[in-house]
């Protein structure tokens, strides 16, 4: 597409307009909402991971001081979910995880609501919980969802059964033949990762009201339209009866990419006729965090001595917890992450969401890409060791480039990873041998590659041009902290209309004002909302220029919009202000506005390769090359990251400084994941880590200045060739640190996080490894679709 303006006019380090109030403590997040007469709600949650509900008696709680209403399973009979409707709002006949909601209470004060919630009489007959995927997949394992076959299917095409909520498979080419070749070397790797908790500083929170027969939900979410849809579905009301608004969100990282507390507050608002605030306590937030899931991964590869990967078979088990949730969708991504990066002669991949009696998991920045990249890159280094090839040379030989096909047979456009790898080695120098330093520590380095994607899909935008020459951008975009709504979007609109970004007013998300949108996540905002905004601007431009053309007696094609004026091309000062044109337009036609829409272009996959996928091919791949140096103390197992470097495929960097902020922050979250953020599940099925003191996120002493290079020019259908840049910085951090540690200690790494005791175990040869006895080396035996 040719742009009607020089693309560089959209590129600038525009400061954030919301920073000042955030620094002054004036920004009102959902947790800061308060108004006279607002009620406070508290949940009663199950303290049993699995059991049959014998009784929930709210009578004693109802008569407690301040209590205005209590909602229970009777108030929300419907089921919701992604792909399959398997999730009730309140536990119905059985509880399936520790922390599952049983009731919510609205009272005058929070203390009263909590006291009443505790006073509800609950009797549960415990059933032995299934806490691991190995137990869930055991032959005679009891079913966590005995009624799984009767659930409403929201998306057709996946194999399901037993405790497997969803299965996505890829079969391309003949791996059996590849593995049977007599010239190949077989390499097998098993990997295990734990959960990661988002810890957004603002927990999930909502204020709901019921006014004029409609629900007004003011909430801390990334997905206003999902909240609207799911709330309506659960309450059994028309979607049009739900109005969602979103103020500044105090951190999301994917946790808020689903409907969460909103329906509870909505029910209580309708029961009481009052505003109801429901905020997770930090303990609840941690204990029910829709974490990045724990996973078990088996990869087997057949590689020629020259370094061609002729066959690859992989099985990835993703723990979805008690309900399918986001993991059902995320099974899709394994094909593009674990099955990504490299050219594969033939490939079979199974990716399964497995039910357990543990808190449900969810989406977290670059989701399963983070651990699939960890497993794939560790496995790649093990291949290099097995065939005696340099890891950078192997990667350079095998990374996908222009015209190569991916796991599902999609054809990639452009050479991106190859040049990025070259740039890394040119910039940071060739690898030296791992060595022991004079300080006794073991030094290692690794360079890894990663593939992620932009989650495109529907977005809409309206642009109203105001009489004062400003423009109002109306979308459902939410500012979750990444800056997209206050930086790249006003920059795009301003460049299109020839005005300053400060003259672009960005409306906060409001489903009554804006069109539908998939939400803020998956790196999609700049791309999808940006493209819709650009289309809306095109309509505004053409209306504006039609009037200006008459006024200036000049063909439209010879007019340019710049600095708030319409000028005749190459004759600065010849035209007039856009206010004058807007005034004339009002006289002739009325006010000027435009609307725009965007959706996924739908890149094709090879027919018949993929089953159970939500996306068969990725519309906008995003690539990353990471490189790091570590030192490992062999006496303590402590890992220090000495240098960390990122080369990130950004398409075009609209606000380089803001992208730097995302890289610094995303890599730091990745360091936490790689080294010390750990969740353990106890015999009760609850997380041991209940807050900041037990779940350790990085402090300033745990990170370092991240070196970075923004790689521009890779193809993208995003506006001005942009790709989202906020999600992907975390993608290969676990991988790169693990590979560098393996390089340093000379022992393969197969689990994250690399806490000091785990590293010490590897060094001492004590750690038993990850055997994954519940996975067969005969790939088809791990599947539902292909097992005889």
């Amino acid at each position, binding site marked *: 597409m040719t742009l009607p303006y020089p693309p560089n006019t959209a590129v600038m380090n525009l400061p954030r307009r919301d920073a000042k109030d955030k*620094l*002054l*403590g004036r920004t*009102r997040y959902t947790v800061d909402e308060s108004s006279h007469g607002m009620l406070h709600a508290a949940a009663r949650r199950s303290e049993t991971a699995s059991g049959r509900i014998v009784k929930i008696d709210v009578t004693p709680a109802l008569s407690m001081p301040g209590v205005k209403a209590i909602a229970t399973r009777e108030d929300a009979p419907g089921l919701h979910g992604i792909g399959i409707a398997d999730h009730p709002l309140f536990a119905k006949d059985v509880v399936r995880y520790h922390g599952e909601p049983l009731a919510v209470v609205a009272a005058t004060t929070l203390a009263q609501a909590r006291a009443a919630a505790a006073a509800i009489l609950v009797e549960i007959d415990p059933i032995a919980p299934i806490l691991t995927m190995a137990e869930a997949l055991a032959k005679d394992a009891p079913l966590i969802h005995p009624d799984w076959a009767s659930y409403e299917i929201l998306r057709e095409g996946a194999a399901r059964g037993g405790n497997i909520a969803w299965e996505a498979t890829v079969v391309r080419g003949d791996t059996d033949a590849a593995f049977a070749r007599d010239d190949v070397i077989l390499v097998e790797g098993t990997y295990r990762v734990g959960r990661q908790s988002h810890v957004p500083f603002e927990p999930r929170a909502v204020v709901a009201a019921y006014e004029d027969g409609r629900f007004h939900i003011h909430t801390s979410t990334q997905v206003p339209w999902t909240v609207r849809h799911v709330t309506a579905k659960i309450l059994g009301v028309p979607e049009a009866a739900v109005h969602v608004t979103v103020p500044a969100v105090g951190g999301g*990282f994917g946790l808020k990419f689903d409907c969460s507390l909103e329906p509870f507050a909505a029910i209580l608002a309708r029961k009481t006729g009052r505003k109801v605030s429901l905020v997770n306590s930090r303990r609840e937030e941690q204990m029910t965090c829709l974490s990045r899931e724990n996973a078990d991964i088996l990869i087997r590869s057949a590689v020629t001595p020259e370094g061609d990967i002729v066959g690859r078979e992989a099985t990835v088990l993703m723990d979805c917890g008690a309900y399918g949730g986001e993991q059902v969708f995320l099974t899709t991504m394994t094909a593009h992450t674990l099955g990504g990066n490299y050219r594969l002669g033939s490939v079979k991949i199974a990716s399964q969401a497995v039910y357990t009696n543990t808190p449900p998991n969810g989406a977290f920045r670059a989701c399963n890409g983070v651990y699939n990249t960890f497993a794939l890159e560790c496995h790649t280094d093990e291949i290099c060791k097995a065939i005696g090839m340099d890891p950078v040379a192997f990667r350079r030989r095998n990374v996908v480039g222009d015209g190569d096909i991916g796991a599902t047979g999609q054809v990639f456009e452009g050479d991106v990873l190859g040049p990025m790898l070259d740039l890394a080695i040119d910039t940071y120098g060739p690898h030296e041998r791992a060595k022991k330093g004079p300080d006794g520590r073991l030094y290692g380095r690794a360079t890894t590659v990663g593939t992620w994607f932009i989650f495109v899909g529907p977005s809409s935008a309206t642009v109203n041009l105001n009489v004062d020459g400003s423009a109002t951008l109306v979308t459902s975009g939410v500012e979750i902290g990444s800056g997209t709504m206050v930086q790249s979007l006003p920059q795009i609109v301003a460049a299109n209309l020839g005005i300053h970004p400060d003259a672009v007013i960005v409306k906060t998300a409001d489903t009554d004002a804006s069109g539908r949108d998939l939400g803020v996540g998956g790196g999609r905002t700049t791309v999808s909302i940006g493209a819709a905004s650009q289309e809306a601007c095109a309509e505004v431009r053409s209306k504006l220029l039609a009037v200006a053309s008459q006024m200036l007696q000049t063909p439209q094609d010879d007019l340019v919009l710049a600095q708030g004026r319409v000028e005749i091309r190459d004759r600065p000062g010849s035209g007039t202000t856009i206010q004058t044109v807007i005034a004339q337009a009002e006289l002739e036609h009325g006010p000027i506005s435009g609307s725009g829409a965007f959706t996924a272009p739908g890149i094709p996959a090879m027919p018949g390769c993929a089953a159970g996928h939500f996306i068969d091919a990725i519309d906008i791949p995003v690539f990353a090359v990471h490189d790091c140096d570590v030192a490992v103390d062999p006496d303590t197992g402590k890992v220090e990251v000495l240098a960390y470097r990122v080369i990130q495929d950004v398409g075009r960097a609209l606000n380089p400084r803001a992208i730097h*902020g995302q890289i610094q922050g995303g890599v730091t979250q990745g360091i936490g994941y790689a080294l010390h953020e750990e969740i353990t599940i106890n015999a009760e099925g609850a997380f041991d880590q209940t807050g900041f*003191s037990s779940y350790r996120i990085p*402090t*300033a002493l745990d990170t370092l200045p991240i070196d970075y290079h923004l790689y521009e020019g890779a193809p993208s259908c995003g506006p001005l060739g942009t790709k989202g840049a906020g999600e992907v910085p975390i993608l290969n951090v676990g991988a790169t640190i693990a590979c560098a540690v393996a390089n340093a200690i000379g022992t393969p790494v197969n689990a994250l996080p690399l806490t000091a005791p785990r590293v010490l175990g590897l060094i001492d040869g004590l750690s038993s490894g990850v055997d994954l006895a519940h996975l067969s080396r005969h790939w088809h035996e791990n599947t539902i679709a292909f097992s005889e």
Partner: protein
Amino acid sequence: MVLTLMINGDPVPYHGDPRRSLLEVLRDDLHLTGAKDVCGEGFCGACIVQIDGVPKVSCLLPVGRLAGAEITTIEGVSNSETLTAVQKAFLEYDVVQCGMCFPGMVLSMTHFMAENPSPTRAELKSAMTGNICRCTGYERIIDALLSLGSNGLGPVEEVRP
């Protein structure tokens, strides 16, 4: 119990349980929501206020102990016309993301910079461990603070072409 709290220079009468945390009183009773309730256990620093000029986590501070103390919250530090040097540097260096940690960050770092006008990067990092941030990865905040230092470093070049 009745006591008078001095909050941002104003006397504020308090009748109630002296064991309640200052954070709760600020947020729930006085609607001063700049201090954030994030961890509730003294770990994150998002609830920091200054008590007689010294940063303290308000989530662990019973109001009953504060009679006569000067309490300064983020709302009392400045107004939009007179941002402090630390706030200005944070603004100029575009370091804010979700913003939830920044009220506490501003109050601790303002105090730290006043006591240590020429900090090194390492000193700043140690000083910042009481203020956890989930979004930013800290280093750009440190760059912003180093630009204020009188140690001859001057502004840190932070944007590359």
